[in-house]
Every structure is written in structure tokens, then in C-alpha cells.
């Protein structure tokens, strides 16, 4: 049986809906996203409802996750960043559970669709732009001029900074999408080899599949972590304009 390694990325339409030419069908990705939302919500609400002084297993897990996210925010944005805790915690938990659920055979990795990651990145970057202009007004355009730039370098530095700013949402979206997609393609190829190899040699790629799955669990955490850290960094840049660079020198 031959199967394309891209097979796991097919979206099966379960419940076609067409709203004025707009395709909003319920497909596999939508279904898995609902599952993830329900899972995160149930986990956090149930863990939070106990509020015991001596926490149970679930509460320990939730407290560890919350402490971890709080640590990231304090590291990158400082005390003022805690205002964004709900947004950042939601992003982190959603991406993490999407990545992890995708590793269960037969399920679907929502974050391997660039549409999904691009929407996350656009929301994060858009928020940082809006916040920057609200907090600093027109002075926020100064983010395009790195501190300490001599005047004659401005015509060169402003385009470079503009490109590096525009690259932020793209690198945010592409990184998550590419890592998840690549990992699952590798898994697909290895498993295809295992099936076509049969019992004689097929056990070798099959063993690699298992090893790769273990590595992918690590990648799922790392990618969720990086996305969260960069969200904090971008929001923090808009929050205190050039604040970080001044500390550096």
C-alpha cells in the first residue's frame, strides 16, 4: 500500500458549510481545535477549582504551567508585562496542546497549517503595533532608528530596520509552521518506509519512527516556548521603546 507522506495534512471536510461563497466547513482541523480548546479549558478550570493548600496532581501541573509562563513574562517584559498574562498564557497553552495532540496517530496537527500560525503571528504583531502607537504616539516610529545611529547612516538603517520589523510576524508564523510540518513529513516518510519494507527490514525505520516521535514531543514544547518568548519580546519592545538597548550599553 503506497501512501503519500503528505497524507496527514489533508483536511477532510466533515460538515460542508458555504456562507455566501465563503467556505467555513467543519473539517478535521476545526474539530481538533475545538478539542484542544475544550481540553485546555477543562484542565485549567478543574485544576483551578480545587484551590487546596496541598495541591493534587492536576493542580500541581497547572501551577507549574502558570509559574513557567509567569517566568517567561517576567524575564522578557518585567513586572508591567503581567497585564498580558491571560493572552500569553492562552497562546502558549493552545499552541502547546495543538502540537502535542498532533502527535497522537490519526489526529491532526493544527499548527502545521500556515493559515493558523499566520493568524497567531498577525494578532501578536498587530497588537504590539497598536500598543506601541497608543503608548508612544508618533515617537513609536523611532523603533526604526536604533539608538546611537549617526545621521548619515539613516538612509541605510531605516530600510534595514523596516525589513527586520516586517520579518518578525513572518518568522514567527513560518517557524512554527515549518517545524511542525517538517517533523510530520519525516514521520510520514519513515512510516511509509516501514510499511513498504515489510518484516524483513521494516523494523528499522519503524524504530526510527518511535525515536522521532520522542524528539517531536521535545520540539512541540520548544516551539510553543519560542512562540511565547518572542510574543513577549515583541510586546515588550513596543512597551518600553528602546528600553532594552539602553540597558545593554
Amino acid at each position, binding site marked *: 500500500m503506497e501512501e503519500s507522506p503528505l497524507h496527514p495534512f489533508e483536511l477532510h471536510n466533515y460538515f460542508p458549510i458555504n456562507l455566501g461563497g465563503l467556505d467555513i466547513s467543519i473539517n478535521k482541523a476545526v474539530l481538533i481545535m475545538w478539542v484542544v480548546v475544550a481540553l485546555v479549558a477543562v484542565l485549567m478550570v478543574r485544576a483551578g477549582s480545587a484551590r487546596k493548600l496541598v495541591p493534587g496532581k492536576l493542580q500541581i501541573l497547572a501551577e*507549574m*504551567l502558570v509559574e*513557567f509562563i509567569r*517566568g517567561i513574562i517576567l*524575564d522578557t517584559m518585567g513586572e508591567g508585562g503581567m497585564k498580558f498574562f491571560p493572552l500569553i498564557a492562552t497562546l502558549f497553552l493552545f499552541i502547546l496542546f495543538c502540537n502535542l495532540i498532533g502527535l497522537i496517530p490519526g489526529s491532526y496537527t493544527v499548527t502545521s497549517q500556515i493559515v493558523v500560525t499566520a493568524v497567531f503571528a498577525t494578532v501578536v504583531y498587530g497588537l504590539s503595533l497598536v500598543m506601541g502607537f497608543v503608548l508612544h504616539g508618533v515617537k513609536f516610529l523611532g523603533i526604526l532608528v536604533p539608538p546611537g545611529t549617526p545621521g548619515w547612516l539613516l538612509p541605510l538603517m531605516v*530600510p*534595514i*530596520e523596516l*525589513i*527586520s520589523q*516586517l*520579518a*518578525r510576524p*513572518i*518568522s514567527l508564523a*513560518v*517557524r512554527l509552521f*515549518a*517545524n511542525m510540518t517538517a517533523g510530520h513529513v519525516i514521520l510520514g516518510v519513515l512510516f511509509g518506509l516501514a510499511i513498504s519494507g515489510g518484516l524483513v527490514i521494516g523494523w528499522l525505520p519503524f524504530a526510527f519512527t518511535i525515536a522521532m516521535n520522542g524528539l517531536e514531543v*521535545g520540539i512541540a*514544547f*520548544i516551539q510553543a*516556548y*519560542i512562540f511565547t*518568548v*518572542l510574543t513577549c*519580546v515583541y510586546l515588550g519592545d513596543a512597551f518600553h521603546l528602546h528600553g*532594552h538597548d539602553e*540597558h*545593554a550599553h
Partner: protein
Amino acid sequence: MPPPQDQFYAGLGQAVRIGTELLASLIVGGGLGWVVDAYLLGSTPWGLVVGLILGVAAGVRNAYRAAQRWQNSPDKPGQR
């Protein structure tokens, strides 16, 4: 237990991050140059050339900044 707290994973995360940073800046620089070429000035291929060069510069700048931020983080990278 999130593995990124491990020093190895923190380093791996940084490496992955900087790689994509270079790529994304290149895409944006080349893309802007191409748009200038194709729709604004019709200056093929100079917009693309200049855009790509600026994109490389922006990518290196982003990678440099990422490394700088990592170095200046309040505690050592592996321990956060």
C-alpha cells in the same frame, strides 16, 4: 515539566530561532524588492537585488540582536 528549562533545549531553541530569523528577513527583503520592480518602478532586476541585499543585512541584524538579548538576559540562559 517543560523541557526548555533544560540548558540543552534552551540552546536548541535559540539556534532554531536564529536560523528562521535569517530566512524571514531574506523573504521580506526580496519580496519588497520584487514588488517595487514589478508594480511600482519597473526597474527589474535592481529592486530585487537591492531588496535582497537589505534583507540579508536585516537578517544578520536580527540574529545579532537575538544573540545580544540572550547574552544580556538577567540570569544565565540555561537557568531560566
